[in-house]
């Protein structure tokens, strides 16, 4: 048939729709400008910065100890790992020796934090796909973690629970027992989530083959954390460049096969179990000794710069800190936040999927806007 090919017979009407910054499921103030063809997403533009508070610049005018509590405010769902990344970077810069007991406590705290963060992720991700009950179940267990944190450092969200050179306080009496008790409870509750989701037909249909990303693409984009591992890349800072007490722990790194949303879900679910395993080992092998290294009152690292990364629940959080050796605050402070790097994949993930998948995909990369915008 003869037909002018220059103009397609039916031109498509693209509808531009703004998802966010005020939207129930953009996990904060993320704004997505979606170009829709019917229900299909043709293109997606993520607009960030609604929560920008200038954390990095702010840190350059605070002294070294004060910065710990600013890092709390980046990924507010995982403050302990933010603290850890920062204090370890400074310790590396100052070549400080941290007592083993402090390292173990840090390990326990950051794994508890991982469990709490994953619980929140699981709940919100499931709620985005419509399974509201899982959200409440997840929050129920997260509450227990928060209680533990509250007992240790007095705070439930922004912990400020680490110090340069060690820990601010020793463990309260009987805390280790309660941590082990929590591990037991959590272990029992995991099958509950799995019952509701893992083999649920609707859940599987909603997540399998949605947002597939290959290993090569994942590395190319710079994904980190569970999304990277779900694509089949066995990269975990805890194993590759051990920090805190991870070198002494025995644990596995779960990796996915296909790199779709379902794999990311499975990977994170397995990480619960590995975290509990690490917590148990750390609590049982907790060494006696001091909790604070030899640190002078006035922290003033020598001139120089360093980068150090740890494995936060959402991925690899890295700190680049430069010190001029003279002032009492960092000369340059820069964070490599996992949420920001993982957000880069969103565009590629959502293209060609439907609106309903967009919310599932925002959930699956697990972002916190406080960290994306800083």
């Amino acid at each position: 048939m003869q037909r002018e090919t220059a103009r397609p017979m039916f031109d498509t009407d693209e509808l531009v729709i703004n998802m966010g910054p005020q939207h129930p499921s953009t996990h904060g103030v993320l704004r997505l400008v979606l170009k829709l063809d019917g229900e299909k997403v043709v293109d997606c533009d993520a607009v960030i910065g609604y929560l920008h508070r200038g954390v990095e610049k702010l840190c350059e005018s605070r002294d070294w100890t004060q910065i710990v509590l600013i890092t709390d405010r980046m990924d507010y769902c995982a403050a302990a790992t933010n603290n850890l990344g920062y204090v370890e970077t400074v310790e590396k810069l100052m070549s400080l020796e941290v007592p083993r007991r402090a390292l173990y406590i840090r390990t326990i705290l950051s794994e508890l934090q991982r469990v709490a963060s994953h619980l929140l992720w699981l709940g919100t991700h499931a709620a985005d796909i419509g399974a509201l009950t899982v959200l409440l179940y997840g929050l129920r267990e997260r509450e227990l973690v928060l209680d533990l944190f509250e007992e240790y450092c007095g705070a439930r969200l922004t912990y400020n629970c680490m110090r340069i050179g060690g820990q601010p306080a020793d463990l309260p009496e009987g805390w280790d027992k309660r941590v082990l008790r929590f591990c037991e409870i959590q272990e029992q509750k995991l099958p509950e989530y799995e019952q509701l989701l893992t083999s649920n037909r609707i859940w599987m249909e909603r997540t399998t083959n949605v947002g597939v990303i290959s290993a090569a693409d994942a590395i190319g984009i710079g994904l980190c954390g569970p999304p990277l591992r779900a694509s089949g890349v066995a990269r975990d800072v805890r194993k590759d460049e051990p920090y805190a007490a991870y070198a002494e722990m025995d644990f596995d790194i779960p990796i996915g096969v296909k790199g779709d949303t379902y794999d990311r879900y499975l990977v994170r679910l397995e990480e619960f179990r590995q975290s509990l395993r690490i917590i148990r080992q750390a609590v049982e092998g907790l060494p006696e000794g001091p909790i604070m290294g030899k640190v002078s009152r006035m922290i003033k690292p020598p001139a120089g710069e360093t980068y150090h990364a740890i494995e936060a629940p959402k991925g690899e959080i890295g700190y680049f800190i430069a010190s001029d050796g003279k002032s009492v605050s960092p000369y340059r402070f820069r964070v490599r936040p996992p949420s920001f790097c993982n957000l880069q994949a969103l565009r590629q993930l959502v293209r060609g999927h439907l609106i309903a998948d967009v919310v599932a995909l925002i959930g699956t990369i697990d972002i916190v806007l406080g960290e994306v915008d800083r």
Partner: protein
Amino acid sequence: MITQTHFLVLSAALFMLGVVGVMTRRNIIIILMSMELMLNAVNINLIAFSRQLGDVTGQVFAVFVICVAAAEAAVGLGIILAFYRNKETINIDEMNLMRW
């Protein structure tokens, strides 16, 4: 007393309104709707006669008319949609090409 004539008059008037709609409006969707009005006028007639004669044949034909109306609406609106996508108009005066 309502007689057959009442229904015939009503039906004729409704049919005429349909015709007026087709003649005066240039919006093709409204033209199609006017045609639905005319079909309804026909149906009123059929059913009124069926009532008068005490025979359901009229109603059977009304069912066929509804059936045809459904088919007409489906295809007609399909054509309108296709045309609109291409020309961005639903004014019948601008539909003067057999092909594009």
